[in-house]
């Protein structure tokens, strides 16, 4: 607990500043337990280290997801505005799908090439290709470009091309907006998380 009686917890952030750092390093900060991981990062920015850098857009009110705050939280991809701080410490790293600009800020225009960090997805998505009508909605909607189109028997069908980048239940846009309801998402058990 801190002075004002808030429960505090540890937030480990993978920091990398291309101007000074040769390679990424982890730094630890104490932040309030209540709230989202994004709230914790904002707390670090305001109270501990103003050189921290991360992206945010909508801050996750309501139903919609802008996808700007996607990162790896304890090894699992997710939107940090939607994931609660863990009582036994949380580690955040940049989302491995895109090139890193600084710290947790990624460049959505440039996809990472070469070897990528392994992730522990929190969910498995599957597409029922019988039901899929090939409308491309999921491909256009996915903030992490997980879906791709492929040709099956001369018909365009969606397929899961990059399951490791999927932000799972923090996003779920593809499931919610699939017109024929062909996409399913099931939760996987991830070690170290509730």
């Amino acid at each position: 607990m801190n002075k004002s009686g808030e429960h505090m917890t540890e937030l480990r952030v993978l920091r990398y500043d291309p101007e000074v750092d040769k390679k990424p390093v982890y730094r630890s900060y104490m932040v309030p337990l209540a709230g989202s991981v994004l709230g914790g990062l904002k707390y670090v920015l305001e109270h501990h280290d103003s050189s921290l850098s991360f992206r945010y857009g909508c801050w996750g009110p309501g139903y919609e997801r802008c996808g700007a705050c996607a990162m790896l939280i304890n090894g699992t991809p997710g939107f940090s505005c939607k994931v609660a701080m863990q009582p036994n410490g949380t580690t955040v790293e940049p989302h491995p799908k895109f090139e890193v600009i600084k710290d947790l800020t990624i460049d959505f225009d440039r996809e990472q090439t070469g070897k990528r960090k392994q992730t522990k997805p929190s969910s498995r998505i599957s597409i029922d290709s019988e039901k899929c009508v090939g409308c491309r909605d999921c491909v256009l909607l996915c903030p992490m470009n997980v879906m791709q189109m492929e040709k099956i028997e001369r018909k365009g069908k969606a397929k899961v091309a990059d399951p490791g980048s999927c932000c799972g239940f923090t996003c779920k846009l593809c499931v919610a907006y699939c017109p024929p309801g062909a996409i399913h998402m099931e939760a996987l058990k991830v070690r170290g998380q509730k």
Partner: protein
Amino acid sequence: MISETLETDVLVIGGGIAGIRAAAEAANSGVTVMLTNKGHVGRDGAAVWMAGMGYQAALYPPDSLEVHVEDTVKGGKYLNNQKLVHDFLKLAPDSVNDLAKWGMRFGRKDGKFVQVQLPGETYPRSMCHTFSSQSLGGEYRKVLPRQVMNKKNIRVMNDLFIIDLLTCDDRVVGALGVDLRNSLFRVVKAKYTILATGGYMALFDFSTANPTLTGDGQGMAFRAGVRMVGMEFIQFFPAAAIWPRIVYRDHFPYTLLWRLRGIFYNSIGERFMERYYPVEKDFATREAMSRAIYREVKEGRGSPHGGAYVSFRHLPRNLINTFLEEMKDNPFMKALQEAGVDIREDAIEIGPAAHYVHGGCWINERCETNLKGLYAIGEVGAGGKDGADRLAGNALPFCMAMGYIAGKEVAREAANDAVPEIDMQQAEELCQEAQKPLNRKNGITAFDMKKKLQRLMSDAMIFDRNKKDLEQALSELTRMRNEEYGNLAVSNKSKTFNLEWMEALEARNMLDAAEMSMRAALMREESRGLHQRSDFPEPKSEWLKHILITKNGDHMDFTTEPVSFPYVKPNQEKGGTTK
């Protein structure tokens, strides 16, 4: 200091719905367009967080444009700029067809679009999604960015934060921006500039909108000499979640209230809504609900995190279980569950959150401001179109229509004009000004300044505005501007994605927006729509006018512009004073 000078026919600042629409429309006519955004186009702006059924269009008889205009003007308490309302809403049905053509999935039945009725509508007029449970936000996100991506003559500049407009002989000739990726200054020379930066809801910490909406457009337009209007009207969403923290700002509780008829309690366990509204009790209108909660908090009977409790415990267990079963996929209900809150037993804390602002540039029906070469659309292109209160679902048809009009207009004009010359001296001075906080060693941080501003705004500008509070807040604001703004220091000197510097640049725009908003609220001595003064509780017919603000040196000049009534006349019996 300026690293690069870019040239374009049309510069669109802001990549939300209005900005994308304008850029796409201008590019269709063959001119070159540059679309800049502080964040990433498609991952920013109102499109991605839009709630519910926010799109109104009068499509089928007996509904008509006239009825739609009348509803809007009545909702706006007769303060609307009726010419703009009429001209923009005329395009709403066309925009629906355009959106449908682009791939938006509106609900259809028997060859017609399905429409539902929201409060304030004479006929059902709000478009729905194909699946009734989904909001339309995701659909905008899907179809709109596609209109500007991979087009030959549209250059999308992500992470370019435009900080000021460049003027030359009362004409806007471009803008100055900071590339957040490398902290370099870039000048964009443009024949025409379109502002589409949204509102200033970030002046309130508790807001349902993006925290990136810091009144950048309002700030830079004001500094360039544009006439501003409607700054005193700020709309609040009645019931956003405050606690548990993980669902902070979520607007789902309002749906929950509407579905399950929750009961409000204050911290001493009293059903306070009965005291304010003996007839409607816990199911009063949105505005009445917000005001009651606000007063309870102000009088010290709020919940620990500054709101009111809402409980569903009075409901039979099987009823609530059926509801929970139906909502099991809902992200809000899931988050509550994970946070250990069971609505069968526990109350949630809710409160009113800033949702939309009516303040922006004074424009004509071509979306043109008083400065040549500058157009303003969407929320920042206010023009008094929303009056004293906005009808639910009217923001997006306005955005779409204004984007279309401004895009077409500038494309036609830009085809003939030459690229104007810019005053490099002015650009250099603005760069110096922007770099000042970076050069200071010690001082006040932008975070503290923002927090202070937010506190001032929530003390004086939410409900029950009065002369005393407003004057107090204004004198504090003036002190902040004179003493603290000059001492704003950025301790982080990094050149890559320097968030602290960005916040310092935003703080300047927020100061301007806050001051305009407070001064206009102090000047309007009546209560009308969203502007409620406790010392002037009645609407007055002599205040049927817009307050216009212009910059005059270091001061603000206030003038008024009477409202004209070409389409809907105010109710004569009540002297146009319908509350």
